[in-house]
């Protein structure tokens, strides 16, 4: 297991390098000069050139890339072009918000979607079409509702109509009540965004397993339905579910970008959007690098989980 983990870990290095390279190139291929942006319209060309020089933007792409890689290796992500704060500081300030938001949403999404999908499969296997359709329709509905729209609906209802939850405000880590209220709506939006996909995949996977002989055997031995469903069937249906959960984490991270912006949360998504709008190369590079690394690590964890769940799996 250890050697497998180490091998898979090493395999992530070129992937991360690829991400780094893509990010570096993509932000520079976008039209729009950060120096001109910072100095504003009407800035004279020599001022723009001078700032470009100070930012190292007049160097060749190769030189800039080499510098960037060296900085990444030494964990120096540089300073923000716009506000001159070290990017690592900005990320460390913003990361807890995004990880908290994404982590809770992922776990909640999993806790809701897996039983939902399992019961839908159970109902379908028992010929209870109406119940299956209801759960499947719910999963489909929450999957297609745009997050930004749902966010506004929830704000109007829970913030304005009921007055229970805030739409904006500071994130106070030391105050659990305030923190819960502040994150409740964005977590609901992101969680529901996860539920649809995971529930539908779970349903399909569990339905296949429920038709297997060992399930019939378990039932014939008098095992109650709930243990059959969750102890026997779900366990063997877990691989595709975990695959999708791992992949949907990427979608979840993308969702945090929009949801943080709508709910005015000071997370990585907000930092990223402002960085893109301001052509803040260093910030965009740093944030996407962290996003990419998190995504790769989550998928590495998924692969490792496979081997734990099914020792037959070899890579």
């Amino acid at each position, binding site marked *: 297991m250890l050697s497998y983990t180490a091998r898979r870990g090493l395999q992530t290095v070129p992937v991360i390098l690829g991400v780094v390279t893509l990010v570096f190139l993509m932000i520079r291929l*976008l*039209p*729009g*000069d*950060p120096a*001109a*942006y*910072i*100095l*504003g*319209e*009407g*800035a*004279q*060309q*020599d*001022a723009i050139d*001078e700032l470009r020089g100070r930012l190292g933007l007049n160097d060749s792409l190769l030189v800039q890339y080499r510098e960037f890689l060296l900085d990444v290796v030494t964990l120096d992500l540089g300073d*923000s072009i*716009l*506000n*001159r*704060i070290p990017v690592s500081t*900005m990320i460390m*300030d*913003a990361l807890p918000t995004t990880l908290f938001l994404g982590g809770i949403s992922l776990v909640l999404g999993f806790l809701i979607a897996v039983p939902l999908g399992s019961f839908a499969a159970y109902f379908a296997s028992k010929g209870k079409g109406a119940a299956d359709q209801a759960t499947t329709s719910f999963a489909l509905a929450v999957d297609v509702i*745009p997050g*930004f*729209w749902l*966010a*506004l*609906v929830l*704000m*109007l*209802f829970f*913030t*304005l*109509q009921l*007055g229970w939850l*805030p*739409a*904006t*405000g*500071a*994130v106070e880590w030391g105050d659990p009540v305030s923190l819960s209220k502040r994150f409740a709506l964005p977590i609901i939006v992101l969680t529901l965004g996860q539920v649809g996909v995971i529930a539908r995949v779970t349903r399909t996977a569990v339905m296949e397993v429920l038709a297997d002989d060992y399930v019939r055997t378990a039932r014939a031995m008098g095992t109650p339905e709930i243990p059959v469903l969750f102890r026997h069937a779900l366990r063997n249906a877990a691989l595709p579910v975990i695959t999708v959960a791992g992949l949907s984490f990427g979608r979840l991270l993308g969702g945090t970008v*929009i949801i943080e*912006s*709508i*709910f*005015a949360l*000071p*997370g990585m998504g*907000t*930092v990223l*959007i*402002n960085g*893109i*709008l*301001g*052509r803040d190369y260093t910030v965009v590079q740093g944030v996407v690098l962290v996003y990419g690394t998190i995504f790769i690590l989550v998928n590495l964890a998924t692969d490792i989980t496979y081997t734990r769940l099914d020792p037959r799996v070899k890579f």
Partner: protein
Amino acid sequence: MKRRQFLQYGGGGLAAAAILGTVGCGGDDDDDAASPTAGTGSTPATGSTPGSSPDTGDFELADEQVLRARFYFELLPLDPATIFGIEQENTAIAVYSGLTKYNANTELEADLARDWEQPDDTTYVINLRENAAWQKDYGVVTAEDVVFSYNRIREGSGTYAREFGLIDSITALDDTTVEIKLSQPDGNFLHQVVNYHQGSVLNARAVTELGDDHWFNPVGSGPFILNDIQPGQGFMLDRFEDYFLGPATLERIEMRTVADQNTAAIALLNNELDVLMAIRQEPPLDALEGQDGIEFSVGEEWGISMWIFNTTIPALSDPRVRQAFAYAVDRKGAIEAAAPRTSQYTKNIVPSWMPEYFDGVPEYEYDPGEAMALLSAAGHENLTLKFMNLGNPTEILTLVQASLAAAGITLEFEIADRAQFNQRRVSGDHDITARGYPTANVDQILWNYLHPDNIVPNGFNGSRYNNPDVTDMMVKARSELDTEARMQLYADIQTQVMTDMPYLPIWGSNEWWPHRSTAKGVVCNRMPQGNWYDISIAKS
């Protein structure tokens, strides 16, 4: 039940959300917030303004004087040489002072200047207040600080250097007297030293000592001190107790970053914010209008959104084609249908509230038949052109596109984000695009848009307009000190320009600052600037 009542009571939430949802998470479609230069009205300042504390009016003050205001981007360096963006400028005016400033009516007033004299047409002798203190124990404002600040702009290559282009010399005659000599008379010069962009006065020692760190830790002489910047969350403006007009009533302004305008509207209704800076979309205004405890201040016609016709495009080099655009766009209809609050009809490149505005310019009422006739005469029937837009086209732009199509003009949208948009607009790399321009100085509009020296990329003359008669009149008008003769020159310029039509004034932009009724004294003027110093919080 009317729609507004429906939104206000009962199950209106979902309906409102559906409406709001159509604009999604769009944030600000800040058409032209990255705007340039300082302003001026043309009414000369009245001289001195006695020091006074803010008027707390006929209401009981709340115990805690903290204003929660909407900010909507990261705070950028507060450097007067380069600052742009309405939210950034509104921060700077709270921190810095100029020699003059704009009041709530966008009229020029004395700021650091106590009074001034003009010994001749090209010389200003400005006497500074003697009690104006710098924040953070940097002493008092001196004439040398003014000299340092303005020479820094003049001798630099920043955005606003050209605004001081007429200055020959700035001299400190003593600690509180500054002499500014111009190369030629400028009836609007006092607008160039207003507390906006290049006119803000810096502390020479602080700028020298702190270097680049100064712009996020500035030492100003304004009513508030910038503190506690939290990227992505906002920052604080704390009351400066030694402000020369007396301390503000507000102890603190919490600038909270809320990018999305719909979220901001909900936060205002839910008492999470007290004032929303810069609401420019109709849906949040729909949701706020008529709600208890919500009031509005509007900076009306703060800028004319002008379509810039690139006259190097063969079709657009013909004035008949440009006039055809003016006839073909149903401006009144589009505004009424899609942006009745955030836009207003205009027929001139000069805002109607400026004293120099001339109402007798040629007017192009919607007439697709006339447009087609002009296009036919110019040999450009079935014209197709590209319009470079900042972000996705708004509803009003889509309506404009439809009305142009009725006259045989196909307008294709090119979508650009802020950085690309600015860069292409500055270089003039477009067929047609738009620009708004907040200023109270008519000369800034005319010179920046119409003078050949300012043809892109040297300035904002994206149309490449160069009419020697108009240029000559602009030079004369700026120097003319006789009011009647000046006004006639300005009227002639406007008439000629609206005939040549290098720019189409598509609509006037209105800046809405919704606020809770407990936030007293909130006024957004036509720059559009908030009057932070005058605001107070009443007991609810």
